[in-house]
């Protein structure tokens, strides 16, 4: 932190401060001891889910082996809803509180949510081929609405990068508006199968209908846990990355100001 004396006499500030800051930035990671162990547990969970899904759970009477995709597909979709819900929360909180913490949370959740939403779409397509006989069905409302949600969040991320980092407050405000407008689609996506039951191949929730039992249900629940752990782990790292980006930008700005002050002090000295 520059002192008042430093500000009055910028030439006194040695380059050691900038070097020190750069050094601390180099050593700063995006994780912590907790996030490291969270990552280890998540990895073990992924391996356990794969083992349960592929080798322990029996094939379904109707869907056959395709049912195994459900252990990734359903938790990914729910994880994406949750992440986009966090984007909505972060966007609303940014507009009301103007705290960059909320903006970084909204951005991080949008990235992780888009990844999970993409995974849900891809696994859904892989499941659709053996079950419905097609990868993609344009008449299916759940597929359409999920794709729309995915595209909205891609648009959110593209626009964030287009807005740039020159004015973080403006970028955060604009992104918050898009985030709120985009996340408003979540209820439409979720309820689409109920509202347009005649326009979907997609089945209603098997979980709430109580159609899944025993080991299949247990594996699905384990899938939710693993995706939840992954969501937390990825959010922590992406959040920290966002925070470091802000610090880097502030630091570069501070260094540029410092250099300009030094130049001005040099000019004053040469004049006198």
């Amino acid at each position: 932190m520059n002192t008042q004396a430093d500000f009055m006499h910028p030439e006194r500030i040695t380059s050691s401060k900038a070097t020190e800051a750069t050094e601390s930035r180099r050593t700063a990671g995006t994780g912590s001891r907790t996030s490291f162990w969270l990552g280890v547990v998540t990895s073990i969970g992924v391996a356990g889910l794969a083992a349960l899904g592929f080798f322990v759970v029996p094939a379904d009477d109707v869907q056959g082996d395709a049912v195994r995709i459900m252990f990734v597909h359903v938790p990914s979709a729910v994880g994406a809803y949750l992440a986009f819900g966090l984007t909505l929360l972060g966007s609303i909180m940014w507009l009301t509180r103007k705290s960059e913490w909320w903006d970084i949370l909204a951005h991080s959740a949008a990235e992780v949510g888009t990844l999970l939403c993409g995974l849900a779409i891809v696994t859904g397509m892989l499941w659709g081929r053996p079950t419905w006989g097609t990868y993609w069905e344009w008449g299916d409302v759940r597929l359409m609405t999920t794709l729309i949600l995915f595209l909205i969040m891609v648009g959110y991320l593209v626009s964030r990068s287009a807005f740039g980092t020159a004015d973080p407050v403006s970028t955060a405000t604009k992104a918050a508006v898009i985030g709120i407008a985009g996340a408003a689609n979540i209820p439409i996506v979720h309820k689409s199968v109920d509202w347009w039951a005649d326009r979907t191949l997609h089945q209603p929730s098997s979980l709430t209908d109580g159609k899944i039992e025993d080991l299949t249900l247990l594996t699905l629940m384990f899938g939710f846990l693993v995706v939840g752990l992954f969501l937390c782990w990825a959010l922590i790292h992406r959040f920290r990355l966002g925070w470091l980006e802000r610090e880097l930008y502030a630091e570069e700005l501070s260094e540029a100001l410092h250099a300009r002050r030094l130049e001005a002090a040099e000019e004053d000295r040469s004049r006198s």
Partner: protein
Amino acid sequence: MIAFIKDAYIVFVKDLKIEWRTRNTSGHVLPFAFFVLVFFGFTFNSSQTVLEQATPGLIWMVVLFVTIVAAENSLRLETENEAVRLLLTGGVLPAAIFVGKVGSVVLQLLFVELVLVPGAVVFYASDVESLPLVVAASAGATIGLATVGCLLSTVVVGVKARRTVLPILFMPLVSPVLVAATRAFGDAFGVFAVNGWSWTGLLALFAVVNLIVGAMMYSQLLEDI
């Protein structure tokens, strides 16, 4: 409330006066819409049956393109010479600016649709079976498109790649409107066996929600222009 309506009316009339003097919609947007309508005919290999089936979707695709142009133009009026600052300094409410702008874009789009629908009847040999449904669905869908268009045009002000960012943001966000409007028009043109009025209800809901949400958030966006 009266002050709000008065402010919105002032912005609405101002934009229409500028439109009347510059002839942007009638001189540029309308020919563009007409060209797209005709060129869709070429791309479908002049197949009358396919064109007839696709009429509802094609009409709303043209309106979608036109909305991007009209909404961007509407915001350009305010950002040039920082005109919006003068409006705000004059005490005009941000939400009223939004509602006024949406009103003027809606009127311009309805004008374009007034040409597009008969154009589709002539060129695509489509028949309008329910005119009230066409009118109601057009009103709902146009308000929905205009609200999102005006909101997002303000979001991309000052962005270098705004001409590409705006469609990327706009298209997915208005896709529920596109789907519902196409379904409603499908019923009105006798192409789809669906209940067009229930889709029109969805359009009305979307329009109202977007108008309210947009008006609430607009002041935040204007701060950054």
